């Protein structure tokens, strides 16, 4: 059942389609438990991730899924399917909506007796079930299941759990449920790809995840996956170790698309004006054009695979070079004289056309991005960031941040810059912090006192403490002068001169090993984890290295 539309997943060192197929099989088993026609009712937060596992068309054609609804308080649209399956995250407020839907349905009655099912993703929850019982609808479900969706394969080299609020939950609300899920999905990963022999980690949460994994292994009672390990090393980095990186403006092609338009579940919605072809204009009326256009961004698109990780300044060159080769290849048809040559050209046509379409799309996206990167706003903010990470005047009130507040630019931008300053100065002097806070509250309103206090609680803003940033910056070579954006030799190209600490940690781990940076590791928050998992003799192997990454991202704003 190798899925269509997932061909790019096996291109990497690790064949991730195995994981995708595993989820897909499990999910289909889960919904095929009820026989007859079905309607799926989706929690909005799940449609994205599930779209990557099972396509709607496949569900409709092969699994009798006739309708798909969104889970809304307004209830379900009428339909005459035999089964209704609710697919939801275990959130209390969603339980209220589900209960409401059920009660509505029962009021409506109808000729066809409907069966209701409930699937929790990723896990059942005691509280949610209790809530449903309180609402008096728990008994109406023919079954309550759970579907353990963990790390979702996004691309040949990227997995994500799409838990947006993880950082907030862990460091603000002291709720480590997401870490439990992380540990669980790493166990799933090991079940499919073999026990990972070496685990490294840094930070409190990393330790917690490793502890839980050890526990889960024990709980399994010695039943180990009998597979030759395909992943050699696992590195777990707690986001607190490197809070600075996600605050900076991303400068790669993909990063900028995300920065400006926000990529979720590998797809992005863009303003349609740039993508309207002459034909579209003729066929459709004005209104239909105004809707944002959705694009899926992954390595299945050859050109995107090449562009995604390039510094945006290098994108133009590649696109124009590609355009030239394509034109040249098209021109080959003139030189094709014999039937054989003609045939060869025709066989290349579909590929050429695909590349040409993709070229068109990416040229337009690049134009959109360029409008943004050329703006004074962006350039000034970037300049400010560069100054701060270089440690210039971080101990004073930054005039640019002050101006941004006065101009009432977006609060997120202001807070991002402010947090960068706090990071690069190892916390701010109380007087300066107070000043900023006053400015922000006077300008953006009193309610942001909570926002600021949350930022303080979760470590983004803090009073001045021991100097670590300067030491870490120097030892780990975070700032690199003379970077080559076109053909980079150092990872610092991604932020035009700044190398993310997390990447440096991974690099050092690969060579020469963490022992060489003990001092830096001691400066960074949280414990260091090194764990060796014994592999039975018969399953050992000698081969390439694979690094697997997890980081816990997201801002607490």
């Amino acid at each position, binding site marked *: 059942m190798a899925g269509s539309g997932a061909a790019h997943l096996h291109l990497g060192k690790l064949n991730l389609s195995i994981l995708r197929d595993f989820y897909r099989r499990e999910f289909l088993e889960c919904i095929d438990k009820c026989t007859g026609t079905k309607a799926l009712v989706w929690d909005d937060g799940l449609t994205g991730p599930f779209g990557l596992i099972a396509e709607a068309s496949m569900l409709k054609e092969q699994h009798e899924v006739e309708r798909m609804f969104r889970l809304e308080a307004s209830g379900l649209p009428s339909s005459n399917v035999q089964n209704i399956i609710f697919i939801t995250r275990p959130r*209390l*407020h969603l339980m209220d909506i589900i209960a409401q839907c059920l009660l509505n349905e029962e009021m409506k009655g109808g000729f066809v007796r409907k069966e209701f099912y409930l699937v929790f993703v990723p*896990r*059942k*929850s*005691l*509280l949610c079930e*209790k809530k449903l019982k309180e609402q008096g609808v728990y008994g109406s479900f023919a079954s309550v299941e759970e579907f353990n969706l963990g790390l979702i394969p996004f691309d040949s080299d990227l997995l994500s759990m799409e838990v947006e609020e993880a950082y907030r939950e862990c460091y603000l*609300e*002291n*709720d*480590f*449920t997401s*870490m*439990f899920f992380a*540990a669980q999905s790493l166990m799933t990963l090991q079940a499919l790809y073999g026990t990972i022999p070496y685990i490294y980690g840094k930070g409190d949460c990393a330790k*917690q995840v490793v*502890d*839980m994994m050890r*526990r889960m292994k*024990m*709980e399994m*009672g*010695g*039943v180990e996956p009998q597979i030759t390990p395909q992943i050699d090393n696992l590195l777990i980095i707690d986001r607190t170790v490197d809070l600075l990186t996600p605050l900076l403006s991303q400068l790669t092609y993909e990063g900028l698309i995300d920065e400006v338009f926000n990529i979720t579940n590998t797809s992005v919605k863009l303003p349609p004006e740039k993508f309207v072809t002459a034909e579209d204009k003729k066929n459709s009326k004005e209104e239909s054009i105004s809707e944002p256009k959705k694009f899926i961004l992954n390595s299945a698109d050859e050109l995107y695979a090449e562009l995604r990780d390039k510094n945006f300044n290098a994108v133009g060159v590649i696109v124009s070079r590609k355009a030239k080769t394509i034109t040249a290849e098209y021109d080959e048809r003139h030189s094709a004289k014999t039937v054989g040559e003609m045939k060869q050209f025709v066989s290349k046509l579909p590929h050429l056309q695909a590349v040409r379409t993709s070229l068109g799309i990416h040229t337009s996206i690049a134009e959109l991005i360029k*409008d943004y990167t*050329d703006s004074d706003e962006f350039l000034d903010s970037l300049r400010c960031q560069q100054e701060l990470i270089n440690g210039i005047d971080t101990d004073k009130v930054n005039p640019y941040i*002050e*101006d941004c*507040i*006065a*101009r*009432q630019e977006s609060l997120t931008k202001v807070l991002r810059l402010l947090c960068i300053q706090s990071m690069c100065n190892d916390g701010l002097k109380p007087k300066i912090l107070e000043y900023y*806070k*006053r*400015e922000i*509250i*006077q*300008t*953006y*309103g*009193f309610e942001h*006192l909570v926002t600021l*206090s949350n930022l303080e609680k979760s470590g983004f803003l803090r009073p001045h403490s021991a100097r670590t940033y300067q030491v870490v910056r120097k030892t780990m070579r975070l700032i690199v002068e003379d970077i080559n954006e076109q053909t980079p030799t150092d990872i610092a190209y991604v932020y035009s001169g700044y190398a993310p600490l997390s990447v440096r940690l991974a690099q050092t781990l690969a060579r020469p090993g963490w022992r060489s940076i003990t001092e830096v590791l001691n400066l960074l928050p949280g414990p260091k984890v090194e764990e060796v998992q014994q592999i039975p003799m018969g399953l050992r192997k000698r081969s390439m290295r694979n690094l697997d990454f997890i980081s816990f991202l997201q801002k607490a704003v």
Partner: protein
Amino acid sequence: MNLGPHYFAAVTEQIFKIGSIEPGAMLFEASKEFQKRNQKADEYIRIIKEKLETAVNQCIQAAGHEIEPSKQRMLLRASSFGKCFLTDYRPEPFVNMCQMLRVLNQVRHHSVGIPLTYTQLEHLSMPVLIDRLVMRKLFGMAVRICQYLKVPDAEGRSRILAHWACFKVQQKNEDEDKLARAISQKLMDVPGVSFSEIASQALEYGRKQLAVKLLDYEARASEQVPLLLKMGQDQTALTKAIDSGDTDLVYTVLLHLRDKKSNSGDFFMMIRTMPIACSLYIQYCRQQNLKLVEDLYYQEDNSLEEGNCKILRSYTMDQTEEQVRLMRIQRRLEDDSGRSYSDLSLQATLHQLILEGNATWVEKLRKDFKVPDKRFWILKINALAYGEDWIELEKFSRSKKPPVGIDTFINGCMKYGNRMEAMKYLSRVSPDQKVRCLVKVGLFKEAAEAAVEMKNEDDFSYVLSRLGSADRQVAEQVRAMRGQLGARR
């Protein structure tokens, strides 16, 4: 059970019947001769050359039906001898029979006393035999048989040891401590043993202390925690649930405790020392019942953390006081003018007052709340431009010692789309801002000329980068100027 001489298996008869010429019988003879170092062995083998495999199989089968180990040995030796002459004979039947016989001989021993025949064992199957041994409390033998037969631990050793432990906990005369230690020592490194099962067995026999001790060894928190609750070991249950990292389990304990403790104070006191339990409960309450959160915080206040809370509060005190002051003024303004100012930040309030031309209050607020000059200027410029009060804006720009550049005025005008007004300020722009301001108002050619004049390459490339919105002809002209810049150098 009749082991009488009348019921020989057919294969036994084939081999031992006098004058039998069955291949098995010949092989048996050959083996005997071979042991006597007689060359007849070779002769016999030659005779049955074609049927050697049948012969071997017959000998193996016959061995199975023998009771006497010595006879078993002779027959097996014969089959082993025959095997040597076969090139691709599969060894499994032979090995299997050896193993079965070993097991059978063991259980037939008088100390065990299960006189089983091979045929009976075949019908009974090995797992059943092992179960029988377990029933007879012959745990050691059962384990050894399992290990000998390489039965997977889950069905074999682990399972039997669990039975052993369950049997052990019933022995009331033994000391609990000793028992717990004995059980754990034997079972600790055995994977897949469910300590919770043993513990519930102990509980059933009324040995609670023992059960608690045993439960401590359970690896699966999801099994351990409910049982701990059942036994009333609340604190331990909560600790174990938190250690597991499984939020659901923590909630199981929390809700159980809350329902159990009649006094909510006791409950809070109990979870207070566990930050994770505490915050999870607060979160649950937030979604369920705000009153409970208040209770919890009230409880908190009485605790050691009080000091911390106070510090935190004084920290935000200034800001809160300021907010109260602002709200008071807003109320007053509302009374005066009849317009609403509620829910506005200080910035927004000032913005509105400027629009209304309420200079007195603007000044008062600005002083009262110590608004920095620069921010105030930017705010006022934007507000005036927003209100399209261009005359006032112009006047404002002539005030003494402006803390911001003239470009701020140009920005303000352009932001609200008045290009003509913006141009008025151009003559007063400082030289270093000139090119940028010209670009801002869309005078690309002039901007380029200014850059060329000042020989400033950075500024010139800035102009170039902005040409996207320029008129095509102008853009061409500007690009052409690039040469001039170079030539003059």
